[in-house]
């Protein structure tokens, strides 16, 4: 069975690009448009990788990452933080929030696939 990736991003274009690229590479893709939805889908769907935008409405990525880590069934789900901030210290902050990896926007479809592939092969 193909590895399952949850894309959590409030930007529809970004979701569409990541989805298209990951699907084309053989991943099964599910999507969430805000933090609450992301958390719900994480619990329901148990994705193999969570691609998590850090600035989203309702619950932001930082909060989602913390809650995912506090949920015992999800404690080991790899999280790739996806942020447009690219600010100094964001990589450290992401690690502290429980993320395993870090991807700076704007990034290319191929970069998304390469990053996800580090954590789960399709």
């Amino acid at each position, binding site marked *: 069975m193909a590895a399952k990736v949850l894309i959590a991003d409030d930007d529809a274009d970004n979701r569409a*690009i990541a989805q298209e*690229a990951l699907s084309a590479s053989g991943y099964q893709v599910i999507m969430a448009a805000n933090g609450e939805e992301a958390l719900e889908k994480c619990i329901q769907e148990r994705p193999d990788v969570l691609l998590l935008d850090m600035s989203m409405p309702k619950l932001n990525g930082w909060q989602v990452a913390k809650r995912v880590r506090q949920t015992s069934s999800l404690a080991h789900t790899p999280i790739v933080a996806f942020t447009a901030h690219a600010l*100094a210290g964001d990589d450290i902050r992401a690690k502290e929030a429980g993320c395993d990896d870090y991807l700076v*926007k704007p990034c*290319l479809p*191929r970069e998304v696939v390469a990053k996800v592939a580090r954590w789960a092969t399709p």
Partner: protein
Amino acid sequence: MDTTLPVPSRPVPKKQASGVLVIDDEPGIRNLLSQELAAQGYQVETAADGQEAIQKIDRRKFQVALCDLNMPHVGGLEVLDAIRSRDSDLEVIMMTGYGTVETAVTAMKKGAYDFVQKPFNMDEILALVEKSLEKSEFRRVIQELKETKKRLEETHIQLIQSEKLAGIGQLAAGVAHELNNPLSGVMGFAQLLLEDDKLMPQQRKDLETIYEQSKRCRTIIQNLLQFSRRENPKNEPVQLLALLQASMELVKYDLSTSGIDLVQKLPPSLPLIFGDPHQLQQVFMNLITNARQAMEGRQKSQLLIEAKQEGDKVFVCFRDNGPGIAPEIRGKIFDPFFTTKPTGKGTGLGLSICYGIVKQHRGHLCFESEVGVGTTFAVELPVYE
């Protein structure tokens, strides 16, 4: 920013520290004056003629000279000229033998402090010496005040510059952040479309242009975000010498193909710096690239890279013999988006980023330039204790 400024001391002349030179061909007068002045606490030396006087003035600093007008060989006026051409601070009191007021007036015009007529009254001489010392003390204080004023003005300009840059940085970071998402869309969809094998050649070409240009936008945005960074991504002891050598290794080839002679004046060791090695390297590379571009196509181009420690600071200087920076744009070169390069060649962010990085390292980035001679950029960084 360093804003400690010297506070001028009150102009009280200190007799103990004041050197007086007595110049007269008559031994009696020399002895009398030197005894009286020494008794007052002055450090007195004597000279029997003009030549000896000039030799002594060249050897040490005096505050006051008492100089006889009529001396054989080198006369008093000539000594005065020699003093004026050497030391503008030394006060000269002329001593004239017999009613030669005209000559005394000439001496005053040439810059003597005052004159006394022989035979003189000792109190009069002592009063004059004291007054002339006061004058030189006042002049010293005025000089100090002028320097303080200049430093204040420079600090003020620096403050305005860093305030301006900070403001622009915040705005730029906001704009860059907002642009990131839409740009993700442009770049991402362009790359996805390019994966399609059934594209017409013209469509592929157009898409490639969209893709390449959006990548350029991404670079600009990343530069902007870097420029506005407020915190240090890394804070670690940095081997400055190794970092400089590594930077030069990277540009050596570029410089030699551009016909630029790279001259290094690096000491065998340099102290540690605290900060981010990648950012510092970026500063060095930027300054070297700017120098290379400034000298491109010129004859006998040379880039001198010099590093040295002075007290608790390290200086790294990049001196080129390019065309120099025109005076009218010197105030703008650190402004974001200011560039003299042709459109598309530079973003105008290089020096702004360098300025920001050096500031974050609690250092200074400054330059000196002369049109037709060249430009020197100096990076000043505090030593890591």
